[in-house]
């Protein structure tokens, strides 16, 4: 049971700290400069994790690098887009309580179309209903007023 639960708990805690950290980046610091620090740390950490968990040493690492394809590299570019988007969203006044849920709802809807167009996944009635409910939620969030 523990083996099943801890990874998802880690994802939840990491997600929460991620949003708070993205909001707490110094306002007067250049966003790209702060992200170079962030990715420098991430590169070193994954390298350390590789040597600890995967073993094989430097030659093992080179063997793994030989298996590289385009996705590994493009993933790095998309990660930058993601983080830059979050950093600027918070710089431009987005609220912590809204940004995550709004992007999650839009993402779920967009991924349905990606699944349909790229992977021939079916769009069923419940998916249409889910899209409608998500859109209603987004409209409600952006509606002015409502008691506190």
């Amino acid at each position, binding site marked *: 049971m523990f083996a099943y639960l*801890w*990874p*998802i708990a*880690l*994802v939840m805690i990491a997600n*929460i700290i*991620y949003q*708070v*950290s*993205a*909001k707490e980046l*110094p306002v007067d*610091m250049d966003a*790209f*400069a*702060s992200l*170079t*620090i962030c990715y420098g740390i*991430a*590169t070193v950490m994954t390298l350390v*994790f*590789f040597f600890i968990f*995967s073993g094989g040493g430097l030659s093992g*690492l080179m063997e*793994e*690098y030989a298996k590289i*394809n385009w*996705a*590994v590299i*493009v*993933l*790095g570019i*998309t990660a*930058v*887009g993601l*983080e*830059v*988007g979050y*950093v*600027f*969203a918070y710089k431009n006044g987005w*609220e912590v*309580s*809204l940004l995550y*849920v709004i992007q*999650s*709802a839009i993402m*779920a*809807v*967009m*991924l349905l179309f*990606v699944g349909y167009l790229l992977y021939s996944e079916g769009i069923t009635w419940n998916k249409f209903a889910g*899209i*409608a*409910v*998500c859109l209603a*939620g987004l409209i*409600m969030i952006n509606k002015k007023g*409502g008691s*506190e």
Partner: protein
Amino acid sequence: MIKRIWPVALVVGSNIFYHICAKEIPSDMDAFASLTITYAVAFVATLICYFIFKKASGSEGFTKECRKANWAPFALGVIIVGLEFGWIMAYKAGWQVSMGYIIVTSVVSAVLLGVGCFVYKEKITLNKVIGIALCLAGLIIINI
């Protein structure tokens, strides 16, 4: 208005390509080895972006900018790895993509509502609470 919309559009667009790329990573390649390349690419890409946009952003020079760093950029680097590692281990432990995503989104949204309210003094209106509940209900219905 555009100032508020473009970062979210960038997050959503990047997130979609992120999922497509994550699905296409060679399955026989070690996850940490592939992530070292991914983050190294991200490091170089942000460095290039820094030099392209440094005039527009009014940068005082790379070293001076780095001296302004507080705990957040360092924490963000560690947390990004924690996130990736958590997802990899969750899938290895047998979590389904849709179920894992719903549970994470629901719990994280609820906690962030509290963080926004108590830490950042954000207003929690009835419209906001109903809207968040509807978004989460929509996510559940999509993934039934």
